[in-house]
């Protein structure tokens, strides 16, 4: 039987190969009857197949598609014949063929794929841009590279992804890629002389490269394995390598010959003291740190800091700022804060002698349209803010600490305690304190009777707090 001749475009003609393979399968042409060539004369182009319109897609394992896309980049003239043979076998009873790496055809294609992958990797690693200026005055970065296979198109996504915000061009002997921050265009084959021959940053890069070289650990073999010599002539940093390797043994010998050096006398006590004396020493310093730091929960950027006098009689610790607190940048100014103020006045606690703060300093919320719905911080987040709260209380030195709600209790004790179970007098690291509910809990209770009862209990809690603060501090269990 006569064989059918298929001519594809030069290089990695993936589309052409796919079209031709579909048509050949549709015509039931076994591999022996198809004669694949690429880069052939136009007169032979598509002689038998390409003109016959579109054949249905082939149903191949997913892994086959990936293999084909990479192997078409290989420069081996047999690549299309080998790939068609694979397709044929996959469709004729050997659907799992790609799992059999011991098969000579699969092994050969995998070896080709490996070679293409290595080439891609080397291009990603060893391509060097040089800066030029476009006619409109903007910077363009241009690189010259000589890949081993036809990988220019295959590599485009990588460079677009990495250098999306720059204008750049990659020139190769097989074609060019241009990126203008929005569109990618392909250009004709280029010459090395089309690329700029230097860049102002290359000197700095070379200096860096040379100074990271350790003569005592020089390993020429590993060096060449990583960066094969064929890439050297296009890399700015490689010029120094032969000299570095040549002088390495001598430099290492000299270091050893010089022997141990006499130490410089510096006072270690001073240095060690300086080191230990770190971290905020005043509340202002701590607050500056907190304000400058990124939130440790997802949510608002603004840290809401504690308020009140140093050495306050009582410190109230809440959960986290709410919507209104975040807007105003002050703690306990929302509905829960107003409720607390009211009860404090009722039980005779002087608000000006009170320090108020939160376990978590940022408002964690979920956007729901225009509104920001409060979200409870999780234990991990509470723990992250704990260092700040404990430092804050250490600097404020309150005589008495009240935990409002479970989050405050968790932060102050480091333990997940139930407010309802431990409600009452408690010690926080040696400081007398009290655990009760958060006022926002009272606001959330739906039914009026329960709410009234809970309010009364909360008021009694604060009355006890007032009494305990007025009386000399007593040890409680």
């Amino acid at each position, binding site marked *: 039987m006569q064989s059918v001749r298929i001519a594809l475009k030069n290089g990695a003609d993936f589309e052409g190969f796919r079209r031709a393979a579909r048509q050949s399968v549709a015509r039931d042409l076994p591999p022996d009857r198809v004669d694949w060539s690429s880069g052939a004369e136009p007169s032979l182009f598509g002689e038998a197949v390409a003109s016959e319109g579109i054949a249905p897609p082939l149903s191949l394992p997913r892994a086959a598609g990936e293999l084909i896309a990479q192997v078409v980049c290989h420069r081996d003239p047999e690549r299309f014949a080998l790939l068609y043979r694979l397709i044929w076998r996959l469709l004729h009873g050997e659907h*799992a063929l790609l*799992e*059999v*790496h*011991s*098969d*000579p055809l699969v092994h050969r294609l995998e070896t080709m794929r490996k070679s293409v992958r290595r080439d891609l990797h080397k291009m990603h690693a060893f*391509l*060097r*841009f*040089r*800066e030029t200026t476009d006619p409109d005055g903007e910077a363009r*970065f241009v*690189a010259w590279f000589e890949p081993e296979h036809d990988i220019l198109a295959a590599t485009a996504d990588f460079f677009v992804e*990495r*250098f999306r*915000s*720059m204008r750049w061009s990659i020139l190769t002997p097989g074609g060019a890629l241009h990126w203008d921050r929005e569109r990618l265009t392909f250009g004709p084959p280029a010459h090395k002389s089309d690329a700029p021959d230097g*860049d102002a*940053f290359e000197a*700095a*890069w070379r200096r*860096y490269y040379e100074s990271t070289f*350790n003569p*005592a*650990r*020089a*390993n020429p*073999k590993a060096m060449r394995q990583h960066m094969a010599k064929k890439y050297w002539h296009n890399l700015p*940093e490689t010029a120094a390598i032969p000299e570095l390797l040549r002088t*390495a*043994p001598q430099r*290492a*010998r000299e*270091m*050893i010959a*010089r*022997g*141990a*050096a*006499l*130490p*410089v*006398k*510096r006072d*270690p006590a001073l*240095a*060690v003291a*300086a*080191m230990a004396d*770190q*971290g905020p020493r005043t509340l202002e310093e701590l607050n500056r740190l907190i304000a400058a730091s*990124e939130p*440790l929960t*997802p949510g608002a950027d603004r840290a809401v800091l504690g308020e009140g006098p140093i050495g306050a009689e009582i410190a109230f610790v809440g959960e986290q700022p709410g919507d209104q607190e975040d807007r105003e940048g002050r703690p306990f100014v929302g509905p829960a804060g107003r409720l607390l103020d009211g009860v404090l006045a009722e039980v005779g606690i002087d608000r000006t002698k009170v320090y108020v703060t939160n376990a978590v300093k940022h408002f964690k919320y979920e956007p729901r349209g225009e509104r920001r719905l409060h979200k409870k911080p*999780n234990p*991990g987040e509470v723990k*992250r803010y704990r*260092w*700040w709260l404990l430092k804050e209380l250490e600097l404020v030195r309150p005589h008495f600490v009240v935990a409002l709600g479970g989050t405050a209790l968790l932060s102050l004790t480091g333990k997940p305690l139930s407010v309802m179970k431990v409600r009452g007098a408690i010690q926080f690291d040696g400081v007398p304190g009290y655990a009760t509910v958060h006022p926002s809990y009272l606001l959330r209770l739906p039914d009026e009777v329960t709410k009234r009862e809970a309010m009364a209990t909360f008021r009694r809690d604060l009355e006890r707090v007032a009494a305990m603060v007025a009386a000399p501090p007593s040890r409680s269990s």
Partner: protein
Amino acid sequence: MSLLKILLTNYCLFDCAYCINRRSSNVERARFTVDEVVALTVNFYKRNYIEGLFLSSGIVRSPDHTMEQMTLVAKKLRREEGFAGYIHLKTIPEASPWLIEQAGLFADRLSINLELPSAESLRSLAPEKDAGTIAGAMGQMHERIAEAKEDRRRFSPAGQSTQIIVGADATTDAALLTTSAALYRDYGLRRVYYSAFSPIPAASAVLPLKPPPLQRENRLYQADWLLRFYGFTPEEVAASGEDGMLALDVDPKSAWALKNRGRFPVDVNTADREALLRVPGLGARSVDRILAARRHTRLKLADVGRLARSVKRLLPFLVAADYRPPTALADKAELRPQLAEAPAQLSLF
């Protein structure tokens, strides 16, 4: 990965004997500003010299101050330069815990150097460092990385790693590997880097002047892989050498096989994954390919040759459909020299 690996400064308050930048060294001192490091990173990155930044620093003023400056570099790169490259920050374990939290928001990887494998060595060679502080910081970081993964938040997405200096003290390979296994287990480390101590200009008098052989570092990395991907315990790997030191002439897997000759040959068509992983010359990928291929075919020696890197190395250890090793392994005396690689590296001394 090619990273711009620099120090923010080589001024240092610490006096670690193995480090050229130790307080008592008379090395020349220099420092970068935060903006200089940012500009250098961005410009090198734009030219594709580097894929990212690996920033470390001597301790200046205080650990907190130093850590803040390093974090500021990462923050500026991300926020002001829109830098999407890789950032690895060498964390300072003596810094306050909240600073590590901040660093994790901007870095891809954080690392804390263990430096020396025992508290005793640390006390004598790095007097300002403390094993407990280092372990505490690793623990904190491990917890945060795990939490962030669960909450799908960004916090050091490429995990944490550490570095141990090899050859500056008398620690054996066995002790090093036991330490590494514990680090992988307790702190979920991605990598332990073994950095052979090398003679430095103006070395401290308490250190050996001769570096450990390059091969030791290499053997430790091979052994480390056996722990992580080949199901070996640190005890098994250590027992492959003598007196707690790995063999230098053959790789640790071959050394183990030579001491456990009774476990071979292994039948490539029937052996389970664990047994195949123990065959010298069979990598994890080859083993997976063998397992996949033999579901469809009985493997002959030529097939194995296409599945593994080199069939010659495997000959004493494998049985295939058409092959058995001619002599029992236990009787082969010349096996060890066969498994030894050609001396790859000439000594520079």
